[in-house]
């Protein structure tokens, strides 16, 4: 008897409690910035592409959905001539973001990627590049390290000494 009454009480209680179901898509749920959704390529604080075409994202990708080709700019920096992600294969695992040494590739909280035509799930560099720094506002790989470029001479990266004069006899 008591248990039946308790069951009725529990049921009645639910008729006034807050709903767990969200009316998506009218209502959008909160997704954390670290959520693993659509992949973007970000730019450094100077507005240049961050990607240096090191190929680590492609290597680490478990479904092999990233393909790119390295090229060199006139200033000596590396960049991807093309950068392609086949989102119809992507499993949003985030390994590419983890592997990226320059914070270029980042996953975003956007997961709404529906297409009638699968071909539209293939994103090229121009579809992936955003005009922003993403989650890491300050980082610029070439200012920290990397080779000599037109805008950074030898010895001007972080923690670098002036180039050695091999002809000097000073101790």
């Amino acid at each position, binding site marked *: 008897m008591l248990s039946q009454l308790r069951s009725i009480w529990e049921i009645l209680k639910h008729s006034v409690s807050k709903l767990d179901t969200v009316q998506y898509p009218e209502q959008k749920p909160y997704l954390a910035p670290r959520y693993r959704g659509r992949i973007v390529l970000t730019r450094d604080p100077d507005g240049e592409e961050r990607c240096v075409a090191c190929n680590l994202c*492609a290597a680490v990708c478990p479904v*092999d959905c990233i393909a790119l080709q*390295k090229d060199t700019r006139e200033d000596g920096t590396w960049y991807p001539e093309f950068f*392609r992600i086949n989102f119809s294969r992507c499993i949003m695992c985030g390994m590419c973001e983890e592997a990226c040494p320059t914070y270029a590739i980042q996953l975003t909280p956007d997961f709404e990627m529906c297409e009638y035509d699968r071909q539209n799930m*293939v994103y090229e560099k121009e579809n992936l590049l955003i005009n922003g720094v993403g989650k890491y506002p300050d980082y610029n790989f070439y200012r920290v390290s990397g080779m000599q470029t037109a805008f950074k001479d030898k010895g001007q990266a972080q923690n670098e000494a002036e*180039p*050695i004069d091999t002809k000097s006899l000073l101790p």
Partner: protein
Amino acid sequence: MIIFVDGQEIEVKQGENVLEACLNAGLDLPYFCWHPAMGSIGSCRQCALVQYQNPEDTRGRIVMGCMTQVTDGARFSLNAQNATEFREAVVESLMLNHPHDCPVCAEGGECHLQDMTVMVGHRDRRYTGKKNTHRNQYLGPLIQHEMNRCITCYRCERYYRDYAGGSDLGAQASRDHVYFGRHQEGVLESEFSGNLVEVCPTGVFTDKPFLKHYSRKWDLQSAPSICSGCGVGCNISPGERYGKLKRVHNRYNHEVNGYFLCDRGRFGSGYINSDQRLDYSGLKGAGLKSADATFAAVHQSQAIETAAGWLQGKKVLGIGSPRASLESNYLLRELVGRSNFSSGFSDAEAAVVRSIINIQKTTVATNPTIKQMESADAILILGEDITNTAPRVALALRQALRNKSFELAEQLGLPEWQDAAVRNLAQDQLSPMVIVSAMDSRLDDVASQLISLSPAAIADFSCAVTASLQGQESDDKRVQQVANMLSAAKRPLIISGSSMLSANIVDSAACLAEALQAHKQAAQEVMLSFCVPEANSMGLGLLVNEDKRPLRLSRLAKKIDTVDAVLILENDLERRLSQSELDLIFSGKTRVISMDLLENNTLARSDLVLPVASYAESQGTLVNAESRAQRHYPVFEPAAERLCSWQWLLQLAAVMEHKKLAGIAHFDQIVEACSKSQPIFADLTAVAPDHSFRDRGLKVPRQTHRYSGRTAINADVSVHEPPQPTDCETPLAYSMEGLNRDQPASLIPYVWSPGWNSNQSLQKFQAEVNGPLKGALKHSGAGQRLIKSTQQGLEYKLKVTHPRMQKGRWQLLPMHRVHGSEELSAYTDEIAELAAQAFVALGETVAEKLGVAEGEMVVVSTADQEISLQVKVLSRVAKNCVGFSVGYDKTKSLRAGDSVALRRDKSWQPPQVIATDRGVASNGC
């Protein structure tokens, strides 16, 4: 002999060092400065392990593996705590100044430094001070320099100076200021500079052309291949991605190229990506017969039908090619009929190659591998600039000259791998090497004696040495000296070749070797080796060697009017025939069908052109100078409508319903038919496994197990992934699936082993350090020697023909250049840049007489033409001889042995010197 490493018993060879012993046993002992071909100097301190005095000793002491010789029962520990800590500390100190630029370093992913750092477990940097930086140098179009990455292992300097004999790269400054570079920026002079890329354990020296369209090692699709740059037949491993040939790496073959390639072999394949490659078949407009008529692109099937229509039931001649595979040449010969097949050699080339083959078939002397040449203790070079005609052999000769130092070392009980000590002991003492040639050669710097003679005089000289060995006195002191040198040696090497296009020199070298062998009796080994002009000269020569009356190319030109069509296989006739002979072939009514890969004038004048695949897109057998048949496999599928030349010929035969070739549809069937066609080709089927080869049920994979982008590479075209191309012709698959471990040596596409991503992983494929590959022991070696000498000896009555020279005229002699003389590699941008201008080479006195200096122009006039060429002044040259650069566009029409007049080009003006912001540069030349 046995040593103990961490309690494990290891069988070792007497005299080797502990590092070698550990690597041979499959243990992972990190190292940097040691290199299997260059021995130990103990400078990097990385291969440290603990040695114990006896079983009771528990403390031990740290020793360097590469500097410690094994002794019976010695006890070592690799895993002792102080050894592992020591090795980690060494890497940490080497990494102090190493920049954080792996993402933008071309070595990344195949970096020995990365591998070793991971292997010793060094993870976090504790050093927070400033890192040293260095200025880079421009080292030419082939090598990129990034000094910041250096860990001062000294491998580059030891390779470049000590091993390859270069003089313009070395160490500068001291302590943590050490710098490796040239005294000033400039193109590296050595023909072997490309090996720095593989020798450097990190990214200081990287492959510059590769950097332009770079891909990581794990992304390259590779296949075992053979270099087509010259007749040496070095084994290479080309890598492809996105349909482009990206780079060529060395593929180890302990009997041929070992660890090293020349720059032509490594960098000369850029032509495969050239815009001048033929993509589609071209048919000249309706019956037009002028050189400028344009081609209409036609479909494969239409091209085949047109060609078959021209050939079927007609009288047809075929022209083969020394740069096409044996199979293609064989098919063409069968297709047109043996008596209608011309080898495609020029008449002079054909005679020399024929001589070389006949000598190799009968000589009592040994026909050495490159590895064997390295053991020679006296060398005589007759008429050949080996560094330019067979570069890899020259590198081996430089090592052979060190046998003197090994002799001295042996007397002191010093092992050969004690590199610094052995070099110190010998100082500049070298084994004797005499070069008898018409002009400067790139080995002059290490020769004990230089003799400058014209080609006919070289043959005479060699005959005189022969006579001297047989007991005749000679007036010439040099003859006696050379005879003494050869008879005193234990393993003398006589080396000559075809570059002078003189069968006399070749025959005289053989006579000399015979006499020397007779003089020495059977006890000692006399080695006799020849350089041949092209990758498959020997294969083609063997194919037509039994012919009683081979169809010479010049005779073919003369009888062209009697036939209906000519089928040319990968041969630019302009390089071999005179203008008038070419006119005979192309301006008559005869239909000309050409198969080739790059645009040239022969193609432009043909009626139908068929695009063929390069060596990297096709399979075939090439026979090298020592008659070793080796097979190359396609690295990637040919693009557009290109086909392998044997595929074109098979399709033609099928449409023509050719009786003799009926039933042949696959590559392996051609090989089988060819092997049965002549006894000399009997071993052709054993050159490499056929297409049915499976390793544990799978074909050998061309791709690495970490080949990336599989589902995205073609996604721009269609998101529906196409199946991988199937390959039913070879034992390799366009796939990541399969094992790349201990398959036959001829089927190793690339080297990789867990923990060893760099090319140093090769030691996991070798049976022992510097030894054969494991696969070569388990299965067959890479390649098969076709000629087995009957050892009957030769009976030559040599009659040397001397050209008659008029006064005021000079004999024109060919000078081969590593960069520029070879037909296909010259289409590569970087090689073209290094090849620079065609030249005529004069002795100092001639230059003085003409009033010209180096870089100025001279008009060379032959019987029917005048060509203005840049002057190069030689330090030594035979009387009445001048040299010219072979194979350059401008000198294509010059022939060896032509008698020419010379005069200063009065119309030539010195180039204006203009100042640029980078200093003074000269404009024009």
